[in-house]
């Protein structure tokens, strides 16, 4: 059983049974533990800590590790940083103990067993820890009681002992924890999210709620981030904007770019659409912009795009460079997989000859072999049509007089064909129609042109089926 502050004042302590606690204080309000919700809340707190440092991780069921290396000066020093974290979390309704030390182990020890809010100056870890109980080393209960049996109760007593007999008697864990606490053994913190090398952060003097204000904050962040990206010669492929609300919630807005971008104005336009759609609550007090994915900036081709040049590869590159801003804007709204160009594939099968590829992909081909006419639109799968009258199975290579498609009859006035397309034996495993197809381009009474085919050969001794595959104009 865990307890709240008022319950402790009434004499109830953690670990009591509920019946005992009720006997002491009948007005006790008991709430069933919800470990899953606790876990989620802790994860939210880890995300919330992202405003202080990108290196934040949860520890155990109720702890947070923040690696504030290089971050403290942004918040006015270590003391101010600690009081800022403690103050904000208290305002959000959390009870907490906080400590700052050289190593995660020492900080854990001090926050759990030391004075709340203690800050250990660099290289003073030993002095800070010697008087703490050995349980502060994150040792399990059996080890702690075994140590107690031989009279070791303080870390200081443990620290001066020879390491070899200690390990032989109490296992390797004791030595490892000691080394972690004193920094002899590195204990890396794995952050919630992969740390972005490019990151920019601002704290708002007053909580902001207006979209314009958020936009202005974003402009400052983008200016700062783009300067860093630029000096590294890189451009952002993905940007993540985190808005920290006063009530502890975090709003994350992510945008992507098809090619690396290092231009604040262009990046601001990508966010433009998305900035209106969130609920600022009681206001936003801090903003962080990270570039989790960045790439080296391509060398700029300065020649403007005039007409298709003789080199398709170069033309493609120029086109991509010119259209990248537009493709990014479109892609961020409808999805990058939906902004495509039709690339040629070497295949006889019409449905495989053109494949949608990302619009700015580099290796696109647009050279289709010359040949009989192809339709303007191809149905994503051929639709069965009913030939009327049904031609005899051994009938010659002629299309039917009339066919019914989507419940409408079409008289065939003229037909051009057949063009025989055989299945590709090397692609036999692919789904789709397997048999030989004979294609006709037919014109109906209204002058509309259809691309129909007969599936199978008369002599293949199978039922012949007719399909409509494409529309001209």
């Amino acid at each position, binding site marked *: 059983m865990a307890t709240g502050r008022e319950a402790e004042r009434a004499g109830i302590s953690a670990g009591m049974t509920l019946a005992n606690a009720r006997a002491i204080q009948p007005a006790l309000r008991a709430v069933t533990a919800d470990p899953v919700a606790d876990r989620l809340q802790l994860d939210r707190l880890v995300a919330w800590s992202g405003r202080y440092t990108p290196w934040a991780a949860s520890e155990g069921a109720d702890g947070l590790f923040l690696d504030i290396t290089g971050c403290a000066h942004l918040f006015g020093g270590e003391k101010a940083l600690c009081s800022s974290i403690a103050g904000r979390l208290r305002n959000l309704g959390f009870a907490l103990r906080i400590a700052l030390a050289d190593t995660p182990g020492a900080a854990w020890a001090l926050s759990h067993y030391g004075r709340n809010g203690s800050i250990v100056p660099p290289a003073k870890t030993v002095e800070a820890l010697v008087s703490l109980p050995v349980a502060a080393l994150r040792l399990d209960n059996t080890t702690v009681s075994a140590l107690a049996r031989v009279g070791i109760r303080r870390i200081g007593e443990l620290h001066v002992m020879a390491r070899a007999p200690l390990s032989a008697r109490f296992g390797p864990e004791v030595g490892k924890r000691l080394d972690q606490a004193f920094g002899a053994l590195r204990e890396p913190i794995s952050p919630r999210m992969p740390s972005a090398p490019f990151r920019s952060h601002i704290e708002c003097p007053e909580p902001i709620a207006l979209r314009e204000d958020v936009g202005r904050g974003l402009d400052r962040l983008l200016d700062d981030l783009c300067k860093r990206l630029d000096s590294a010669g890189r451009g952002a492929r993905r940007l993540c904007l985190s808005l920290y609300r006063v009530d502890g919630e975090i709003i994350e807005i992510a945008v992507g770019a098809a090619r690396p971008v290092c231009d604040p104005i262009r990046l601001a336009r990508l966010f433009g659409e998305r900035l209106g759609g969130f609920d600022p609550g009681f206001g936003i007090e801090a903003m962080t912009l990270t570039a989790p994915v960045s790439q080296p900036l391509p060398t700029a081709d300065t020649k403007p795009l005039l007409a298709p040049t003789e080199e398709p590869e170069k033309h493609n590159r120029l086109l991509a460079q*010119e259209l990248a801003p537009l493709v990014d804007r479109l892609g961020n709204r409808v999805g990058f997989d939906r902004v495509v160009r039709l690339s040629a594939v070497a295949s006889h099968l019409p449905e495989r000859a053109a494949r949608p590829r990302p619009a700015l992909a580099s290796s696109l081909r647009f050279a289709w072999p010359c040949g009989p*006419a192809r339709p303007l639109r191809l149905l994503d799968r051929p639709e069965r049509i009913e030939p009327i009258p049904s031609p005899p199975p051994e009938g010659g290579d002629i299309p039917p007089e009339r066919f019914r498609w989507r419940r409408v009859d079409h008289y065939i006035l003229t037909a*051009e064909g057949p063009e025989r397309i055989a299945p590709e034996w090397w692609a036999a495993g692919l789904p789709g129609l397997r048999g030989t197809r004979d294609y006709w381009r037919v014109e109906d009474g209204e002058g509309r042109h259809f691309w129909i085919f007969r599936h199978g050969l008369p002599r293949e001794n199978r039922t012949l089926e007719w399909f409509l595959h494409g529309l001209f104009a």
Partner: protein
Amino acid sequence: MSRTEIVEKLRADIAVIERRNAVVRPVPLGLPGIDTCLPQGGLARGAVHELRGSAASGFAAMLAGRVTGAVLWCVDTGTRANLYGPGLAAFGLDPQRLIVVRCPNQADMLWAMEEGLRSPELGAVIGEPDGAVDLAASRRLQLAAETGGVLGVVLARGPGQRQRFAPSALESRWQVDAAPAPAHNRAGSCWRVALARCRGMPLQEHVQWMVERDGTTGHFIVADASADRPADPGLGQTPAGQPAFALGRHG
């Protein structure tokens, strides 16, 4: 001042009021019969034109093939008849210049069209909105096109007799239907192109042309300048008699 001069002057005044003095050079269709009829000798760039009818896609591809720069074609994700690269080239649109954006709904479609129309690096933007484009949406599109100076084309669904006269801020409205190809041009195709309305042009009834695409060369010509001739109501129907049957074998 003669009567025609007054009319010319009034037209110029209206153009200034409508902020159309900055209209960049128009896109000629390359079809002399039609170009001479249009007020600027071609389709206005920086404006949106509406096409409907069974051959509207082909006509749009032909228009897009006549502008320089990339072409953005906004289609619906739900469509089953996808644009086909090898077929587009036959209408003069090089697939290399084409970017297709598949929009999940009407709002995204109109937004994508607006974004494209505002981008001067594009040559043309073609959209296929699922429903009717109302007056407000058409005005937004038109303003976006004026900003970017891009040729915009709206492919309207259905025959749309009712929507044909719906209020719209679009520059012009065309009806393009397939027509039986003449006997000498079996490999090609024939369109009946009718101009329903065009800004800056007095409304005439039944301004229509027969446009033929040569099956071998892919060139377009105006076969029959049948302006002032009323549309034959029976032309669009399936002939009642025995269908003529001609079979061409491809080599």
